């Protein structure tokens, strides 16, 4: 059996077996679950060969699976996060309800994502895409909170995307006569112009939904926030990247042949930019960590979309690098939220506070990941941002630079809010006996955080697969050597050399720390956060020293005009209107049998009157 099949089938079998193993032993189930993820992952990295196609026919449709260098890059992300989050899940789901359900859908989602990456024809692509959708849908509604709202919204938007894609797929079939992706790419330049425009747009709509591009992003905040956090780290970290995966393929292989391609790219890029801005602003306004990170994910995906839509070689590298980084740090951050939720029972900033000394390792993960998120050198996040800005400037998208930079700066606000909200600030009595998260949760978190640091120093680790992947898509190879040195440079010859920067930063940091810390260590003592100077007055016991509510109120007041109404609101109104119309039209079925008979007679008479026109010779 081919190893690609084997991997997919192992996941499927693993899902079923794991789901039922819970009947006998919880420990066995956990073990099987980890194995069900790691064995295929190991197989993938050791056995799968590039560009080897397996074809077979199903229902009269020729299907092909295989691995390209481009999907290899995404597969790294999926499996990395998949394995990390699986280990984390074992700790996170311990003692929670619906564990079997969770494991089943988790494995199915990972399988579907790998399947998408393996697919070399549109039908397998779509099949895996939809499996991914419904498996993740089942995860979103898993907690049972607001399922009719959040879950349905997720599904409706997924369906909009998937059906747009399906429409494109059947149109493609009408043109080429089969469903193979490569055949379509080859015939695309010779299509009629209308189809040439319509098909990529439909595909892009499909991918934009998963990539949460405005205005199709409204499902994302709720769905990310209400899934189990251990899944959200995959959901936001890897699953959303499937949209990016598709978009890049469309941009590179299709739109480059289209005269209007540039316009479409610009529109998408601007949509991405608006997503980044609006989502960032909403993230700042959130008081719930899950929602904050959810909006933040949408915003970060916005940057990635900008980058891949611009589509210069450097922008592509930037976008894909950021996609990978986002997987790492957002995965870790969602895990942090999960850990806090597990240990305290809530994720509300206004309730939890001062956990830094209770959960130091969790805090460390959060700190590193937040620094990566904010794009501050020397971590990996900066490299992506840097390449993004440089490529935007070089490709004359100046306004986009401003917009992207604005949202990136504004991201500092919520980044700070996240750290401050959970870990800093007053240490309240209520959380005095919170313990550090279990080791199974800490290890994957820290591993991802280390990944962020590692990619800051050695971006070539991941730039190399990206580069290979882009070249295999037929992308021009002007940056072929980029990853060989750790030097980033733009076409104007300006550069950032990472190693000395990192040394300088570390050197100064350690020196200063030594200066303030080591000389004082013996003589200072730790005092609690209650023991603070308040302009000479001693705070009384009942005085509130916790600053939590309306955290960024001044800023939010400044940006109030753009945040008056969420896009959500328009969709809700639209949906409610539609439902009202449907509710009205179904009154055709009045309940009176005689009316029905009358319909029949009238229908007959109308047809008889129309006869010549209706059934023309």
């Amino acid at each position, binding site marked *: 059996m081919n190893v690609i099949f084997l991997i997919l089938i192992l996941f499927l079998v693993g899902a079923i077996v794991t789901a039922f193993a819970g009947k006998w032993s919880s420990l066995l189930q956990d073990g099987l679950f980890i194995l069900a993820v790691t064995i295929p992952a190991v197989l993938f990295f050791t056995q799968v060969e590039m560009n080897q196609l397996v074809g077979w026919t199903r229902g009269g449709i020729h299907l092909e699976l295989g691995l390209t260098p481009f999907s290899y890059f995404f597969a790294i992300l999926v499996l990395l996060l998949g394995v990390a989050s699986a280990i984390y899940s074992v700790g996170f789901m311990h003692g929670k309800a619906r564990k079997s359900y969770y494991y089943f859908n988790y494995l199915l989602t990972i399988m579907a994502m790998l399947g998408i990456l393996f697919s070399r024809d549109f039908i397998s692509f779509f*099949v895996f895409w939809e499996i991914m959708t419904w498996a993740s849908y089942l995860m979103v509604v898993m907690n*049972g909170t607001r399922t009719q709202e959040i879950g349905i919204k997720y599904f409706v938007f997924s369906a909009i995307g998937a059906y747009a894609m399906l429409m494109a797929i059947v149109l493609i079939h009408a043109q080429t006569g089969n469903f193979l992706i490569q055949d379509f790419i080859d015939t695309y330049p010779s299509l009629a112009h209308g189809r040439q425009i319509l098909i990529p747009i439909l595909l892009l709509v499909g991918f934009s939904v998963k990539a949460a591009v405005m205005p199709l992003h409204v499902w994302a905040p709720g769905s990310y926030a209400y899934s189990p956090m251990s899944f959200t780290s995959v959901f936001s970290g890897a699953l959303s990247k499937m949209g990016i995966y598709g978009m890049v393929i469309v941009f590179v292989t299709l739109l480059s042949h289209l005269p209007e391609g540039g316009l479409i790219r610009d529109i998408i890029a601007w949509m991405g930019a608006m997503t980044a801005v609006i989502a960032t602003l909403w993230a700042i306004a959130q008081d719930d960590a899950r929602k904050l990170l959810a909006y933040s994910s949408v915003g970060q995906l916005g940057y990635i979309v900008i980058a891949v839509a611009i589509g210069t070689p450097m922008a592509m590298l930037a976008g894909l690098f950021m996609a990978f980084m986002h997987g790492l740090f957002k995965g870790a951050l969602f895990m942090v939220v999960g850990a806090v939720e597990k240990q305290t029972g809530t994720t509300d900033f206004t309730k939890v506070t001062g956990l830094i000394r209770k959960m130091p390792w969790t805090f460390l993960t959060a700190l590193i990941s937040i620094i990566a998120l904010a794009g501050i050198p020397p971590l990996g996040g900066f490299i992506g941002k840097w390449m993004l800005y440089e490529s935007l400037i070089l490709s004359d998208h100046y306004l986009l630079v401003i917009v992207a930079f604005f949202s990136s700066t504004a991201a500092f606000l919520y980044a700070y809010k996240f750290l401050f909200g959970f870990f800093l600030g007053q240490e309240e009595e209520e959380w005095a006996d919170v313990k550090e998260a279990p080791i199974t949760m800490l290890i994957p978190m820290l591993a991802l955080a280390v990944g962020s640091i590692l990619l800051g120093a050695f971006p070539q680790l991941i730039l190399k697969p990206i580069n290979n992947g882009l070249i295999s898509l037929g992308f021009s190879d002007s940056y072929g050597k980029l990853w060989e040195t750790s030097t980033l440079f733009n076409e104007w010859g300006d550069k950032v050399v990472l190693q000395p920067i990192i040394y300088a930063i570390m050197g100064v940091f350690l020196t200063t720390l030594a200066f303030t810390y080591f000389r004082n260590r013996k003589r200072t003592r730790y005092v609690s956060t209650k023991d603070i100077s308040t302009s000479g007055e001693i705070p009384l016991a009942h005085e509130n020293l916790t600053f939590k509510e309306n955290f960024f109120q001044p800023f939010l007041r400044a940006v109030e005009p753009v945040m008056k109404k969420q896009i959500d609101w328009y969709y809700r109104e639209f949906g409610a209107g539609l*439902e009202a119309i449907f509710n009205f*039209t179904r009154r055709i079925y009045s309940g009176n049998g005689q009316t029905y*008979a009358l*319909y029949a007679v009238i229908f007959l008479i109308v047809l008889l009157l129309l006869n010549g026109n209706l059934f023309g010779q």
Partner: protein
Amino acid sequence: MVGSPVLFVAIPLLAAFLIPLMGMIWKEFVRIIPGLVLAYMLVLSVSLIIYIQSHGTIVEVISGWGPPVGINLVFSPFSGALTTLMTFLGLLVWLYSHKFKRNVDYEPAKKYFILLMLMVTGSVGMVLTGDLFNMFVFIEIVSISGYGLTSFFVRRDSAEAAFKFLLMGAFASSFLLIGIMIIYTQLGTLNMAEIAQRMPQMDYHMKVFSLIFILVAIGVEAETFPLNGWAPDVYTQAPGPISAAMSGIVVKAAVYANIRIIYTMYDLQGAYEYLLIIGLITFIVAETAALKQERLKRMLAYSSIGQMGLAMIAFGIGTKEGVYAALFLMFSHAIIKSLLFFSGSYLVYNKTSKYIKHVNGMGKYLPITAFLFTLGAFAIIGLPPFMGFWSKLALLSAAADSNLVILVAVILVVSIVEAVYYLRVVNRIFFFKKRANTKPEKPTINAMIAMLSLAAIVLVIGFYPDLVTGLIERAADDLMDKGRYIGEILSKN
């Protein structure tokens, strides 16, 4: 040849008369014999299907009278495939209700099983017959047994539903008679093959008039848009398995009749457009009406109507791909909707009002039933890798191949509505708290077998559609090849 198509009609009719007599010997016969008959019909149709693959279509001439005068039964790949599907479903419905009606007295049970058997027989007859008037008779058999079965539960509003059904049915049969009459006066024959052969001679207006009367008449049974007012009521009030049989068997037969008439008998291009437009309207109206339903079975009913609309759209496309898609849709819908009706009935078992809210929290108490319902819901929405996906793909592909881009878009948009109302129910099953006054009822073992076998089909075909695509393709070929149909029947003359 292992048997004759006549047996499809003869055996059940004979059994129907024998059952009351046998019932006097041992009461259980009333429940068992219909099952045996249906099983026999299934075996027969499967063996005939295998037979015709090597020997070609069977045309059975009854009592030696040749086609123009006598009645004939045609077991072609197309009608054979449908017969197999119907008898299979009939058997499952019987299996499902075998114990389901345990608590029902002898008298009602007798009526129930006899009528069920007759309904299946009538539907099979509609599919097999090659004679227009004979088709009318079978339609009436189906309808009358349908009226009886609908009003089975005395204490509900079932009589109301049955009366509406009857009213529409009576109009339909009148119209059908008029249509048949016009054809007969013009062409002097009632044999469908001969009608098809002589159709070009017919006066254009007469042709259109007759077609309209027949379409409206059969449209009542086939649940096309302005004629389907009875359908939701009947589905709501009939016993669960009967709803399944209605949507899986009766409506399929009616759609078959519709299609046979348009594809084989008439040569009017506009009829395809009629199918397309009416199908589309049916689809849209039904799916949107289903969105806000409060009763589970009524929702399923509208969904069923909508799916039939889809099948009609597919037939209306008129190409071979379209016919293939339509047959696939009919097949998958019959299986999936039966699964939904079967499992849905248990989810709202204890409440006669069958409100959707009664399914709240049932996932915890009836895990397997709830899982099967979910499977059915996912399949009918068209999510891969379940069966519904392949049929929907075939439909969309056929529409796209015929350059009907707008149609593809409309179907997909309305499908989203469909997804919404199904998922709302699924969410209720699993994630809502059980209501205090609902009592979960465990399915009987027979019902479970019936549901599991349907679910197995949904899954297996979903992963391996090749099992049926060959059969469906042959059926589609058969329907498209009008000349061969005429030739095969008339050669028996």
